[in-house]
């Protein structure tokens, strides 16, 4: 059975590359996390950081690290994880790297709700999150419902999502225009995605969502890989296509909405994580964990650049937006050239 041996050899080779890639990403994440805690107006040695984490009281450091940097790190990492998984799942489901929830308007409802809460209702951060979540999921459901019923839901979903996104955007602009002047920068800052001012208490929902939903998506990733082959092939392989798709979309939308509700829409993280992960671990395997790690790394790296890279501190969303744009154009062109479509 030398054939089987050769097959196993090839498979092991590819699995090894995957493992190395995931370990490298994890290591990078740890380094960035350390950076988030150590660096700042006052840089603390790593020893102090560890002591604060363990619970000891270190004068000066405890407050800065415990109350400011740790929440920031946690928010960034969790949001990055969530966006990464949401984006890569959508891209795989819709068989199109351009069909990421932030591009096709799925999370636009969450933005409207958050802006409404920030500039009109003046609700607390927790209530804003809850409202953004509810409206975000409702919008995604509406888009999905409107797109159902066709032989291929993907293309319709994209178009309808873009239309709804445009409509939501108009509402957001309307609200921002009506807002009192001092609310405008708060709203704009939220709209670009930012880790400022997040408190640990606010992260509870996002943490639970990530811990629950990411493993679910990981478990479903085998079905997802079958779905990559098209609905017909997936059915032939025994996948319950409708059920799997709904579950995956709900999970992905929920993750995207939870993250958006907490940090605002951080541009392009959902969109970039999947393709970058694929380049690191190679095609053919599940992208869920790699994309999650890439997403977290992207957010933390962008935030570090935003905080320390320029004279003014920029929110994380601006950095990801500017860095993401050229890569997005490159990807668009490359995808089209290779004939990819939905």
């Amino acid at each position, binding site marked *: 059975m030398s054939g089987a041996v050769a097959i196993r050899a090839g498979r092991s080779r590819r699995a090894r590359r995957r493992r190395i890639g995931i370990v490298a990403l994890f290591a990078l994440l740890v380094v960035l996390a350390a950076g988030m805690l150590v660096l700042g107006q006052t840089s603390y040695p790593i020893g102090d950081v560890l002591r604060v984490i363990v619970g000891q009281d270190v004068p000066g450091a405890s407050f800065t690290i415990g109350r400011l940097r740790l929440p920031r790190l946690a928010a960034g990492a969790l949001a990055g994880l969530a966006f990464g998984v949401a984006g890569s799942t959508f891209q795989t489901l819709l068989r199109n790297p351009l069909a990421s929830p932030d591009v096709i308007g799925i999370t636009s409802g969450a933005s409207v709700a958050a802006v409404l809460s920030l500039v009109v209702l003046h609700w607390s951060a927790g209530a804003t999150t809850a409202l953004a979540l509810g409206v975000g999921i409702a919008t995604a459901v509406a888009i999905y419902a409107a*797109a159902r019923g066709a032989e291929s839901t993907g293309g319709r979903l994209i178009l309808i999502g873009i239309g709804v996104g445009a409509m939501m955007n108009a509402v957001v602009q*309307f609200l921002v225009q009506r807002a009192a002047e001092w609310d405008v920068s708060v709203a704009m800052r939220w709209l670009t995605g930012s880790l400022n001012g997040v408190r640990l208490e606010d992260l509870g929902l996002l943490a639970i969502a990530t811990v629950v939903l990411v493993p679910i998506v990981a478990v479903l990733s085998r079905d997802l890989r079958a779905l990559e082959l098209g609905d017909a092939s997936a059915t032939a392989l025994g996948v319950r296509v409708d059920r799997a798709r709904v579950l995956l979309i709900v999970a992905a939308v929920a993750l995207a909405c939870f993250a958006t509700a907490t940090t605002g829409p951080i541009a392009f993280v959902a969109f970039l994580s999947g393709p970058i992960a694929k380049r690191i671990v190679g095609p053919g395997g599940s992208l869920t964990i790699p994309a999650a790690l890439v997403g977290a790394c992207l957010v933390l790296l962008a935030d570090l650049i935003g905080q320390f890279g320029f004279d003014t501190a920029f929110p994380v969303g601006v950095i990801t937006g500017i860095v993401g744009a050229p890569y997005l*154009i490159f990807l668009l062109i490359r995808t089209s050239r290779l004939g990819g479509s939905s």
Partner: protein
Amino acid sequence: MSSAPARVRRSVRTTWGVIGGVVLVAASVAASLAFGSRVVSLPEIAEGLRAFGTGGTAGDIGAIAVAERIPRTVLSVIAGAALALSGGVMQAITRNPIADPGILGVNTGAALFVVCGIAFLGITSVFSYLGLALAGGALAAIVVYLVGSVGAGGATPIKLALAGAAVTAALSSLVSAVLLPRAAAMNEFRFWQVGGTGGADWSSMAIIAPLLAVAAIVVFCLGSSMNSLALGDDVARGLGVHVGRTRALAAAAGVVLCAAVTAVAGPIAFVGLMVPHAVRLVVGPDQRAILPLSALGGAALLTIADTIGRVIGSPGEVEAGIITAFVGAPVLVALARRTRMRAL
């Protein structure tokens, strides 16, 4: 032989369409003058128009209101016509039922250039402002079109829409990057971000009017060539049409039409999407009929949208851009549902 009656039927419909269109525009103009935060009566309209015409000041409040509404009504008519024409042209040359210049990122491109001009070059003159918006919008549309047409199948609806959405997202980030550190500019900018005809003034309209007129003439001249384009590039070439030249000219005209309007009125979406489709339902696929009727339809639509906005937003207003977005999105959804996936 049997097509002759059908052709006659269509041109009869077109004639009626033109008449209907003109009547509709006239009615919407009248409505725009009459309605708003204050409903005005017919004699007051007459008085306001007379005062406007003679350059004097009107007597009573109603007539003053009318006189104030005249510039924005004129802008709505012109802008609506231009946007609808732009959409019709884009749909024709990309063979793409959902090509709306807004989807092509014209708005965000214009915004980016304007914002950069204000922030880095300290631009203050209206003329430069318009020029920047025009250049930015045109550039964005070109980039989106190029990016969306790479690869097999050319600029299919989905590729174009995605290219537009992606480029728009990218440009928005850049806009944010420029604005966030500049609170004053951010404050100014948000008023431009919502498209509407409220800021209509004669000098800006005078600047863009010749541009719009030239572009419109180019478009109308290209009508029958665009009919051939609809059959596919190879068939069109076989019929003697200069495919590349026609497409480039038409695209340039379409982009100018949209970018010029955006420069003056801000981003107004979906007019270019909705109107040509509605018109096509009535008069069929002949561009020589669709284009002029779309212009009329667009003029009426935007004027009515503006009027509705002033009525429901009274004493302030809800900008026309919001109204068209709210009406247009469901139309897009309906279109996406109706059209077969292969056609998309």
